Structures are given as structure tokens and as C-alpha cells.
């Protein structure tokens, strides 16, 4: 019988009080963004905000608890932006959004950082719920960065995979790992690159015993990219059914799927709050389209990160996901 798990891809909006407090503490300019060695006051503000978003998830009744990635000023580029071997330069556009991050330029060996592991440790202390780690997938992280050290695109991707593998290795016990891979859609890998992207994902996934979900978004993967991704030893692929229904369905019908699946059915970038029943219905509809296939686990999630939303709407979206998963369980039983 299918298990329905409500979760999110993390990267939450800061609570409004934290937006104010941290603006005052850090400032508004490029050089004011997170450094990885922030002082006591800033750390305290983030600690409090982290506790709050963990509370929001618990109250909503989500089946997985994420740290919230509130410190990730540079969004998915964060793990590199705070790395010692990386120089951050100008502000660049974050995919096709009205959002910007510092261009991380890799200038040396990407040794162990532990930044994300520390966040997870802090989270584990605050909740008894099932913990979910969130990381940029290796392909997206390499796509968001500039390399001035390795000199070769394949070698750079390999170095990013090595780096992420080391970070995952240091994680506390987690139930699930979400690897976010929007670049697999937004700047789709070419021939050869697609296979290497899959191998890099496989390498990072192999560093943990937790279930690994790879979530591309802002559309559907090209067929070949999807086919290669299925070669990686991962538990679930995520599908952005908000941005593109037909091509995602086509991919699953044509190439099959992993035993588990993540369905991005709530829009992480629009304030229109979905009905839990509607999400449950769409979940059933997707399952119905696939005929015989029954997934072991279906993750119900927003299609994208939720930092695009006002805080109140983000909270509502989480509650809807939790309720939709409960409804799906009941219907299935």
C-alpha cells in the first residue's frame, strides 16, 4: 500500500520579524550577505527563526521536517557561497525569477565545509519528527557557480559531487534527502553531460542510507535527461506538475519511474492556496494515468522552494500539503 508523505523542498521565507531584525543586523548590500562565520547576534536570530519554522511544520503536521534553509541568502548556491575556496562576486539572476544571488567563483579545492551538517544538527535538537535534509543537486550547484580552478566542466562537476558527498557524509541521522535540481530543466545537460549529471547524483545519493529524492522543477526533464536520471541509485524523482503536466506524465509513462515519487502539486510561487481535496484528487489522477504502477511512497510537496511567498501564505501551503497527504492515506485505505 502506498504511503503518502507530506514534505517540502525547504528554502523557506524568513518570518517577518526576522526579515526586519536580520536586515538591521546584517545590512542590505552584497557584502552583508551570509558569510558562514556570522557572529553571535545574527546566529541567535537565525536560531530563533529556525525554531519557529520547525514549529510551523510540526503544527501543520508535515511528515518530514526540514531546517528551512533560512540562512541561504544565495538560495541553492549557498553551500558554495560560504565555502572558503570560493569567492563571491556580483549579483546575478536566480534562474528566470526576480531574485538574485552572489555569483560563487570556485578558486581552490572544495574541501569539507560542514555548514549544512551544522544546520541539521541544530534542527535535530529541536524536533522529534523525521528529519529531511535539503541540498542543491550537483548539476544545479555546478550550473549556478563559476569555476576558475578545475578548468574542465566534467572535472568541475566531479569536484562538486565529491564536495556534496563529503557534506552528506557528515549529516546526522536523517530520514530523507532532497536534492534540488532545477538546472536539469532550466539549462538541460547536453549529450554526455546528462550521463555525468546522473553519475554525480548517484555519487551524492550513495553517501547516505536515507531515502533520496531528486527534484527538478520549472518544467519537465528532456527525455534523455530523465532516462539517465533513472540510472542513478535514487529512491524518487520529483515532478513539477504545476509548471508542466503533459511532459512529466509522458516521461513517466514512457520510461517508467522510481519506486517512490515526489509530486510537486502545490505552487511554491503563487499565493493562491490550493484546496487539500484538490491536491488529493490530482494525486489520484496522476496515479490513475499510470495504470498498474503503484508507488511505495508518494511525497506530496510544493513544486519549488517557498521563499518566493509571503510568510503567511507559506504557512498555509504547508498546512494544505499535510492535510492532502492525510486525505490521500484515508482514501487509499
Amino acid at each position, binding site marked *: 500500500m502506498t504511503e503518502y508523505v507530506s514534505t517540502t523542498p525547504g528554502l523557506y*521565507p524568513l518570518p517577518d520579524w526576522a526579515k526586519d531584525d536580520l536586515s538591521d543586523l546584517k545590512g542590505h548590500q552584497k557584502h552583508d550577505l551570509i558569510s558562514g562565520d556570522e557572529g553571535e547576534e545574527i546566529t541567535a536570530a537565525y536560531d530563533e527563526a529556525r525554531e519557529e519554522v520547525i514549529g510551523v511544520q510540526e503544527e501543520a503536521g508535515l511528515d518530514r521536517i526540514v531546517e528551512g534553509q533560512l540562512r541561504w541568502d544565495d538560495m541553492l548556491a549557498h553551500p558554495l557561497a560560504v565555502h572558503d575556496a570560493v569567492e563571491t562576486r556580483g549579483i546575478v539572476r536566480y534562474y*528566470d525569477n526576480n531574485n538574485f544571488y552572489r555569483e560563487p567563483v570556485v578558486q581552490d579545492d572544495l574541501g569539507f565545509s560542514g555548514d549544512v551538517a551544522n544546520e541539521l544538527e541544530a534542527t535535530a535538537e529541536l524536533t522529534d519528527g523525521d528529519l529531511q535534509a535539503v541540498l542543491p543537486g550537483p548539476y544545479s550547484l555546478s550550473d549556478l557557480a563559476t569555476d576558475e580552478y578545475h578548468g574542465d566542466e566534467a572535472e568541475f562537476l566531479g569536484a562538486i559531487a565529491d564536495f556534496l558527498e563529503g557534506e552528506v557524509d557528515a549529516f546526522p541521522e536523517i530520514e530523507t534527502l532532497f536534492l534540488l535540481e532545477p538546472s536539469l530543466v532550466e539549462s538541460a545537460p547536453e549529450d554526455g553531460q546528462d550521463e555525468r549529471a546522473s553519475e554525480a547524483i548517484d555519487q551524492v545519493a550513495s553517501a547516505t542510507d536515507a531515502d533520496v529524492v531528486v527534484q527538478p522543477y520549472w518544467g519537465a526533464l528532456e527525455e534523455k535527461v530523465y532516462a539517465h536520471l533513472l540510472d542513478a541509485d535514487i529512491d524518487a524523482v520529483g515532478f513539477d506538475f504545476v509548471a508542466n503536466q503533459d511532459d512529466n506524465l509522458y516521461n513517466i509513462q514512457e520510461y517508467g519511474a522510481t519506486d517512490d515519487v515526489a509530486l510537486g502539486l502545490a505552487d511554491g510561487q*503563487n499565493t*493562491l492556496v490550493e484546496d487539500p481535496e484538490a491536491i488529493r484528487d490530482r494525486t489520484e489522477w496522476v496515479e490513475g494515468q499510470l495504470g498498474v504502477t503503484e508507488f511505495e511512497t508518494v511525497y506530496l510537496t510544493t513544486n519549488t522552494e517557498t521563499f*518566493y511567498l509571503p510568510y503567511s*501564505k507559506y504557512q498555509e501551503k504547508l498546512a494544505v500539503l499535510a492535510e492532502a497527504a492525510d486525505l490521500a492515506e484515508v482514501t487509499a485505505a
Partner: protein
Amino acid sequence: MSANENKDQFRPENHANDNFLLTTVVGSYPKPKWLNRAKELYQDENHGFDEDDYQEAKDDAARLITNEHERAGLDVVVDGEMRRNEMVEFFAHRIEGYEFNGPVKVWGHNYFDKPSVVSEVEYDESWLVDEYKFTASATDRPVKVPITGPYTLASWAFNEAYEDDAELAYALADLVNEEIEKLVDAGARYIQIDEPALATTPDDHAIVGEALEHIVADIDDDVRIGLHVCYGDYSRIYPEILEFPVDEFDLELANGDYEQLDVFKDPEFTADLALGVTDVHVAEVESVEQIEENIKKGLEVVPPEQLVVSPDCGVKLLPREVAYGKMENMVKAARNVEADLDEGNIDIERGAPTPADD
């Protein structure tokens, strides 16, 4: 020298030169510190500073900045958008159908109150007629009215109510059209549509063009309509934008050191060009000589009668004295270039890009 009636209606009676390079600004200007303080007092529930007080403060600021523009010598002035907070928020508060749910991130700790369109957008009370009437009464010079364009009003909001952003943009364009009719009735002759969102999604230029058709419907041809676009890859919207029903394109080009200038040389630029000649991201006042050189860049694209001189974008983030200095030098430079043109001292080849620009 051939005439350009639409532009020449703003030519001052006592203009000293035969040539006329209209000088103006994009719109926003740094707010006096006391106006921000007045806003804080107004928002402080424990303070007696009430709505009337705040209104008076905004009136004073609008009068002050309009006069500051006059003093700098601008041919067409604006009130510096003293009554407006943010270019989407201000209008969204005045249009039925929008609601606010809190700030969202742009980058780092920079946020804006991105509104949601939750029902059909409707015209309620006028947005800018009072602002225009006040500014027009505060000066003898022509006043330009900047309005955030429908594409930007649609793109920089959450769309909960319309099929897609294009449908929302067209609905908003009808409201902008209604507002412009009211402004024209009130005496406005120069309207500027601001569409910065076009730069981030240049492939949508057809939507902006269609929205502009809605905007200008039944508006008298004599009314000057400008379109301001900034910080984008212009090669992706040119020459398509020449089809837009506007008299003038106001473009940021100084910031990129005119690297994109050649884009506009071929095919021929058939509209008026409001050229950005001072960089609003550099907190230093360019010299008159430097700005003269920048103005001459515009003459590589259009003849003098089609050229308007303006900063790259709104100057609101600059220190006020720097903003003023840029206006003042810009006007001096324009007058110098006009005089040089009159005397036949300027020989610039216009049209197709030259291979080397040195």
C-alpha cells in the same frame, strides 16, 4: 532642421538655441529625509502626527522637488514621485482586485510587498490626477506623468485570478487607458509608461505591445506617450519595439557605457529616443563634458529633433545632492550640444554601426 511637433510642444518660448534637445527625468528622486521621518511619525500610532499632517508633508516635498527640477533647468519636470513608495505597490493599493500578504525576498535582505491579484482588476478612484494637478500648479513648466506599465504591474504580482499574466496585463492596460484619459482631461500632455519587467522577460515584447495598444486607444495623438525600459538585453526587443504605438523610448544606456548602442542603429530608429546620459548607479556627478559626449552617442542613432536627454533611470537611490548635480550638468551639457549643433560644429554619422568605435 525638420520639426517634430509632438516634442516641440514642450519647447520653452525663450529657448536660446535653434536646436532643442528636450531635457527631463525618468521620474523618481531621492526623498528629503524629513519626508521619511514624517512617514514614520504618521505610522506611529502613539504619535499625534495625523493624515492631514502627512498629506501636507507630501505636498511640501512634491513642491520642493518640482522646484528642484526647475532649478536644475529641466524642460519637463516631475514631482520626483514623492507620494509613491514603490512602483508596483503604489498602484496596487489603488486598483480593486489586489491584496497584500506581506513582504517577499528579492535578494539578500531586500524585500518588497509583492501584491496578489485575487479578483478581477477594476478601476476605482483615480491614481494620479491629484498628483498631476498639484505638480502642474506648482510649476510653469510642462509636467511629465510616469505610470508603471500593465506588464510590470502584472509580472511583479502573484496572479491568482487570471488565466495567465498576459490576460492580466491586458485587463490592467484598460485601466491605465482610463487613467490616462482622466490625466489628459486634467491637462497632462506627456505620459511615460514604465515597463522594467520587460527587460527580465524580453520574449514577452508582443504582450507589452498589445498592452500598449489598449493603453493608447482613443488617446489624442498630440499627447506624448513614452515607454521606459531599463537593464536588459535590448537586442532581444529591437527592432520589434518600433511597432509599439509610442512616441518615445526612454532607455538606460550610460550604465553599460553605450555597449548596446549599435543595437538601435539598424534598422533605423524611427521613434524619438530619450537617451540615458547619466548613470544612476554611480554616486558621482559626471562632468558636463562627459555628459556632452554621452549625448552625442544619441546623435549616432537619431537626428537632434528626435533626441531627448534623460538619466538612465529613476535617481531615487542617489544622495540628493548627487542627483541634483547630475540634473544640473545634464541640462548644461544638452544646451552646449544644442549650441554646437546650431553652429554646425558637430559632425556625427548616423545609422549602421561602424566596425570599430575608437
